[in-house]
């Protein structure tokens, strides 16, 4: 009726406004149906967490999520991708954050559906929201250049020119990147060529190990070593079918990383030092399947000659020991606290991740924990964006961390 009125009175803007306002009031008064919105948009970047909002539901309702392939048929016949999505109530809606950087099981460049199931009493409804994870998200103007010049997507060109993306100016187009920061004598620097870093560790007092999903345009996931000055970056091994996280260096001189494969199984890859390797070039790492899956935000806290002490998030924080001979994962009973993150010291402090709601610095910063257990009032590292996974060099003169900084 409204549409017919609007069509039959195209030259009466006042009448149109009145009718549309009345409709808007009516729709507001009526109980709205639930809906799901993801930000920034359908094309998500792996480095930027996907924000999910479920509106028009009550706090007593339950919400669950599934990520499935967009196979165009019924939901149950579409391939499911494992995912844990934490959420919370805020401002009358349910908000969830999908950290795509930690969900290597979700394939890039494929159409996917985020299925949201909302249970309201005895009634259950589902919503399918279309999205895809882009490994290389080109903007409009970049594309024009791409067609003329290179034939490949050049992410920096469009950023410099206008920054226009198909994504909105909401979180997705915020120009954040992960890279390694190094602090020495209160002077911090960021290492070029360490983009998309997923973990950092010291091989010795001179060399840094880091895992990355691809420091150059999303290609070349694997384990790397680099000098703290940013020079002499070397690829130690490539990972084709998974995402490397949590690098480590053993006392034997071997190095390695924990790998989350695309089928969500976990492996430890250990590369022996060239002198001890059976293979002539010593470049092929040993693959050790782990007996159980780890979780998100995996960190290696300490190493033994044949094992790792790791910390990760599942529903709660978990501390576990990994036996690198058998692949057995033994979870330890532990009382959560800051102490589990204290490792080698930087100067007189153990570096710890720290959030201070009263601080002017945003996000997670790195503070120092003294031997007496007191937290320094001053951040060792602070800035816009999260600063995480601090590791001090064995000689205590340098601090390396993973920085989610805004591109200068």
């Amino acid at each position, binding site marked *: 009726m409204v*549409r*017919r009125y609007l*069509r*039959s009175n*195209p030259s009466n803007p006042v009448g149109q406004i009145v009718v549309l306002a009345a*409709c808007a009031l*009516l*729709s507001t008064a*009526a109980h*709205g*149906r639930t*809906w*799901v*919105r*993801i930000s920034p*948009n*359908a*094309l998500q970047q792996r480095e930027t967490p996907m924000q999910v909002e479920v509106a028009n539901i009550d706090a007593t309702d339950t919400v669950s999520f599934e990520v499935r392939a*967009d196979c*165009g*048929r*019924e*939901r*149950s016949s579409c391939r499911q991708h494992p995912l844990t999505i934490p959420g919370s109530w805020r401002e009358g809606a349910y908000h969830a954050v999908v950290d795509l950087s930690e969900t290597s099981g979700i394939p890039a*460049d*494929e*159409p996917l*559906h985020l299925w949201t199931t909302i249970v309201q009493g005895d009634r259950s*409804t*589902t*919503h*399918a*929201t*279309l*999205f*895809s994870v*882009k490994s290389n*998200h*080109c903007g*409009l*103007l970049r*594309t*024009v250049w*791409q*067609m003329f010049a290179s034939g490949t*997507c050049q992410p920096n060109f469009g950023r410099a020119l*206008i*920054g*226009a*993306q*198909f*994504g*909105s*100016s909401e979180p997705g*187009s915020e120009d954040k990147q992960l890279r390694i920061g190094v602090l020495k004598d209160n002077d911090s620097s960021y290492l070029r060529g360490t983009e998309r870093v997923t973990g950092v560790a010291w091989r010795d007092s001179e060399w840094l190990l880091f895992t990355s999903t691809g420091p150059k345009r999303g290609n070349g996931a694997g384990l790397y070593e680099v000098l703290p000055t940013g020079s002499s970056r070397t690829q130690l091994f490539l990972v084709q079918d998974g995402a490397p996280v949590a690098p480590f260096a053993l006392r034997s001189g071997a190095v390695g990383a924990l790998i989350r494969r695309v089928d969500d199984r976990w492996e430890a890859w250990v590369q022996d030092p060239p002198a001890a390797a059976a293979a002539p070039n010593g470049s092929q790492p040993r693959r050790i399947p782990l007996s159980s899956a780890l979780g998100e935000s995996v960190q290696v806290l300490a190493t033994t000659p044949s094992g790792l002490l790791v910390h990760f998030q599942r529903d709660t924080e978990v501390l576990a020991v990994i036996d690198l001979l058998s692949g057995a994962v033994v979870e330890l009973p532990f009382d959560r606290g800051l102490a589990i993150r204290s490792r080698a010291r930087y100067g007189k402090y153990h570096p710890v991740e720290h959030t201070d709601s009263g601080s002017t610095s945003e996000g997670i910063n790195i503070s120092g924990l003294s031997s007496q257990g007191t937290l320094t009032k001053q951040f060792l590292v602070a800035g816009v964006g999260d600063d995480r996974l601090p590791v001090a060099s064995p000689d205590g003169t340098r601090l390396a961390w993973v920085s989610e900084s805004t591109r200068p």
Partner: protein
Amino acid sequence: MPPKRTTAPLPERLGVFDVDETKLARIKSAFEVLAVVGGALAIVIPALGHVALRHRSRLLGLPDGFLEYEPVDVAITGTVVVWEGFVRAVASLLATDSLVRLAWLIVACIVAGSLVRLRSAALSRGVIVFSAIAIYFASAILFEGIKAGGRATNLSSIFAQATFEMQSWLENKGNAGRRELAAGLISWLLVWCVLALRWSWVHAKASAQYLDKLFVGVLSIELVLLLAMVPQAHAYARWGREYPRVTGIDPGCDSGLVAKLQLLSDGQAWLVSGGASREVLLAALPGSSELTALPLTHPEGGRCAWSAVTLEVIPRTLSAK
């Protein structure tokens, strides 16, 4: 001493029955212009309406001609296409999406092009060349996105990304503003193309070079392409896939259909006819994950379906039951 007053010769006054030939010629030419414009609009507006309504059907996956309209509805739709094209162009400059920068960039190019045209022929040619290239790529990308085809499965190319992104604006709730913005961008591209064509036409008339005439030809083709996109963009922005959910069916309409629809646990049926001559539902019938178009006819000429006030996005992928 006061200056001498001089008397200027008075213009020759026309008598009561004299005719101002100049004024008459102006009126005649104005009438001719009105007649040409009116005639063109009489053809263009129904055509725009027809194409826009056809694209509305295609967005729903319905075959051409499945939804039938009265001629007056087609004409009104065409008028709305033109009017809302202007409104969307202005509104696109105030949008919150990052694509708004592209709208401002086009406006800046229009302004810069207008200024440069007056000063340097070489710069003007540069602007025209740039315009032709930019219009081609921008319209190609928007066209890829707006066209209601199947979904891209390999998102490696930018055209596939554009298609996917704009498909998501159809399928995911809360993207009506972005659809309006995309349609507004096409309006601005159209303005830009018309101006660039005018500039190149002026140059081509004064120039003996074939290159200038080539610009005219290229921009003319661009203009036709963009004009074809206008009703498509209107259907995309105005309707998308958002329609009211059916809340009830008159049992006197079609007993078999009513029985089928009653089996639906969550009433997965939407009234998609809008201003069409007959009512049409798009429904997920039991045992099928595909949507089926169902025409309804009331034996006494009344309404068959009742629908909700609010609009919903019709899902392409249906929930498992």
